């Protein structure tokens, strides 16, 4: 059997080909000729990927071989799409990609014994939540589409939610690892509904409250949906009580309904979602044009570089936020249903590999951490694609690894690093006779 790292190396080949072909496609579209620049981009990307691969070979030889190539595929695809929108943005994105890989390497280097995270779980949780408030700080906070999502210090802008999601998952995984037993055993049946013990459930309520708080304070429906879904997923996996999920969902819906009817921003988002044709030139413009762009893509799409993003001859956007929120609509337009399904399948494969890591992991924290990271990643993809295809209200979260956005790329590479750390240990334990690796339960 080929070793994990060799399989990873092989899997990187199609990624490099995809990227080179993609750039070549966009180039030939825009310049009517094929320069060698596309090959340079492809070679550069492949070089960076190879370096990462070599690093993984040394540091995490047993880690899952497909996760990195799959994410590299998304990054490559994202780079081509962003390049197609704006060359300058793509250059930024490429730099963010490199920075992301640096952070990826640093995470692997310093968190080789990632259980130390457990020790700092409250610090991490509080730090993550505080990060969310930064965009409200006058002077550096930015308001985009009515939501306070971004922070801008000098030339560098980032979205703290991207990092908060990791912090929250780490906290929940650690907390639930410790309290899952009591949550199960202490559960009581009241009026036929199984309720968790309040004492141990308290911190969960804090997370629920924080999620709702975010809805109001930073006006970010998408992130709160994403955080809360990840929370429910972890709660379910940790306790095996589906009723907890139902209760949680009910609480979220009640809270969401309350805010939807009292907070104009949230109310408007829901309204646009339900009745986009009410104001096709105003509030419904973005979602309608998202759907129109998809209708135009058909089965095979119009081809790279073919989609109209602005009204020709003007600066009026035909697909607002094409490089971030709307990038999926652009993908459907340019590579069609087949291309879009391909993208979704890559996310599906990542989710499958991520959950596989969780299944293989030997201890509770690792299991929950891998589950949480995978879930939050998959749900983020669902929230934004779901918004673009009108399954749920459109909210401003990025499409992981594809959307333009530095913090998104960097944070997701950190997420990937953590997953690979868990995976490396799990597969090493599986491969080697038990006992040589200290059992983690003992450390807690």
């Amino acid at each position, binding site marked *: 059997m080929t070793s994990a790292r060799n399989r990873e190396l092989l899997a990187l080949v199609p990624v490099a080909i995809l990227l080179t072909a993609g750039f070549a496609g966009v180039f030939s579209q*825009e310049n009517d000729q094929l320069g060698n620049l596309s090959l340079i981009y492809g070679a550069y990307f492949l070089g960076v990927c190879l370096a990462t691969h070599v690093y993984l070979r040394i540091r995490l030889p047993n880690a899952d071989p497909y996760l990195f190539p799959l994410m590299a595929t998304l990054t490559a695809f994202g780079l081509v799409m962003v390049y197609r929108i704006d060359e300058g943005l793509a250059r930024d994105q490429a730099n963010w990609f490199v920075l992301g890989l640096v952070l990826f390497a640093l995470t692997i280097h310093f968190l080789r014994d990632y259980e130390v995270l457990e020790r700092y779980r409250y610090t991490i949780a509080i730090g993550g939540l505080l990060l969310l408030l930064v965009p409200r700080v006058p002077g550096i906070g930015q308001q985009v589409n009515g939501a306070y999502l971004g922070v801008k210090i000098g030339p560098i802008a980032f979205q703290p939610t991207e990092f908060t999601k990791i912090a929250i998952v780490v906290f929940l995984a650690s907390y639930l690892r410790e309290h899952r037993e009591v949550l199960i055993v202490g559960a009581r049946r009241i009026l036929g509904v199984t309720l968790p013990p309040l004492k141990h459930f308290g911190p969960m309520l804090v997370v629920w409250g924080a999620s709702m708080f975010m809805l109001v304070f930073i006006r970010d429906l998408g992130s709160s949906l994403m955080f809360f879904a990840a929370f429910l*997923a972890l709660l*379910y*996996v*940790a306790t*095996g009580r589906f009723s907890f999920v139902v209760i949680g969902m009910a609480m979220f819906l009640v809270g969401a309904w309350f805010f939807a009817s009292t907070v104009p921003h949230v109310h408007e988002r829901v309204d646009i979602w339900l009745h986009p*044709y009410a104001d*096709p*030139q105003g509030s*419904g413009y973005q979602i*309608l*044009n998202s*759907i*129109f*762009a*998809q*209708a*135009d*893509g*058909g*089965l*095979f799409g119009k*081809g790279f570089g073919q989609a*109209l993003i602005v*009204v*020709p*001859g003007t600066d009026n956007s*035909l697909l607002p936020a094409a490089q971030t929120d709307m990038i999926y609509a652009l993908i*459907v337009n340019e590579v*069609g*249903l087949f291309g*879009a*399904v391909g993208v*979704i399948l890559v*996310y*599906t494969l990542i*989710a*499958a590999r991520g*959950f596989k890591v*969780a*299944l293989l992991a030997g201890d*509770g924290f690792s*299991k*929950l951490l891998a*589950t949480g990271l995978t*879930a939050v990643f*998959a*749900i983020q*993809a*669902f929230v934004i*694609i*779901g918004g673009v*295809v*009108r*399954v749920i209200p459109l909210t401003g979260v990025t499409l992981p690894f594809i959307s333009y956005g530095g913090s998104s790329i960097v944070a997701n590479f950190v997420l990937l690093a953590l997953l690979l750390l868990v995976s490396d240990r799990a597969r090493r334990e599986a491969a080697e006779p038990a006992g040589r690796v200290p059992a983690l339960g003992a450390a807690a």
Partner: protein
Amino acid sequence: MNRQIVKLSAFVMALFAVLIGFTSYWSVFDAEALKEKDANKRPLLEQQQIPRGRILAADGTVIAKSVAKGKGASKRYVRRYPEGTLFGHPIGYSFVKYGDSEFEQFHNEELVGEGSEFSSIADELLGHTQEGNDIVTSIDSEAQRVAVGDLEEQGFGAVVAIEPSTGAVKVMASNAPFDPNRVPYEYSKLANDNVETPLLNRATQGRYPPGSTFKVVTAAAGLDSGAITPETTIDAPGTLEVEGTPLQNDFNEDFGPIALDTALTNSVNTWFGQLGQQLGNDTLFEYMERFGFNSKPPIDLPEDEVLPSGVYDIENDELLHANDPVDLARVAIGQERLLATPLQMAQVAAAVANGGKLMKPQIWKRVVDPDGRVTDNMDPSVYSEAVSKETAEELTTAMEGVVSEGTGTNAAISGVPVAGKTGTAETPGNLACGGGEEENQAWFIGFAPADDPKIAIAASVECTEQFGNDVAAPIFRDVAETILNGEE
């Protein structure tokens, strides 16, 4: 925990499946409907990036063409109409911001060269850029010019000329005209002008009382159903009491017992009123429908820009049918609540001219791809067999009398036998005409040469104080002459 992880994993897969489902719905299953939405400017914007094909008159005159503007990514094509108002109707316009209309809208797919999804992939792989096809129409630009000119002299109205044997539309003029080039600059002015309604194609959407021109239909029903022969006489008094109101001939003239020839030549109301009553609702409505009444003419113009003709329930804007109560004597002479479009009346003339066979009226003639290959030709097809050849011949004889010695002498062309029928419907108090008491709708329908018809024409003029023979018959003559001269 593994059991839960597997379940969660399955749930996440299900979520992604939902995404694939929705994406499929928008991009494939609902795509066509979405492309039709008014809010969706994308198809038009994209079409603007490909050179739309030209529209040409039969003689090669360029009616519409596309010119490039801008460079690179902002390069786009804008429509130009070199002849201005001349072909505003029935060609219409096509602009991104204001959409498209009439012929431009109906033939959009050919004009933008839209192929199947697979052929566009092939094009993409081969590096072809999409280009539109040219469409050559049957429109005779000289005759169109004459028709537009005559209408401008006579007043609002429309002229339609059809080649009887093929259904080819050679003239379709509507006054007030509009210049499609002006649409981007004064759209709201054009669209909101409720008096002149320049954007309305009166040939297909102007519903007017057809007056005595409708007697051709009544006569056709009488002859073809066997109710009368050309020799049958009906006593035609000066006045006839119908449903409590007297139905009169012009000047109350009493004709005594006369046959079809005399009745049509002199447009005798009491004669046709009685014939109508004798035929009954079922028969008259059946023949109306055979001539195309009660349905939209099957012409190559957008369905919402073509109106059906028939007896209307004016209040509800609904068509009445054979089982509805109507004053049949007045329907038979083109009054009551009967309304007809100029296109419909041209179809009546064309059907009689073509031995009773009504051909599908079509403006387009052929499609020529960017390489100059003819990819499609208009195939003449029979829309309805209105009456027998014999009936058509008998009608032709009677209609010749109208022009040679009757009420339509101004339609005569020297050296060419002409068959036709005048019509003058009184439209007192018509608000569109300013509410005057002496306003008429003047008509002439006919064809020439009567012995070998090459062209069938309907001309209709609104808001005139004169009669069909004074204002509509001369238009017929001018247009017919131009077309017949052009054919020599």
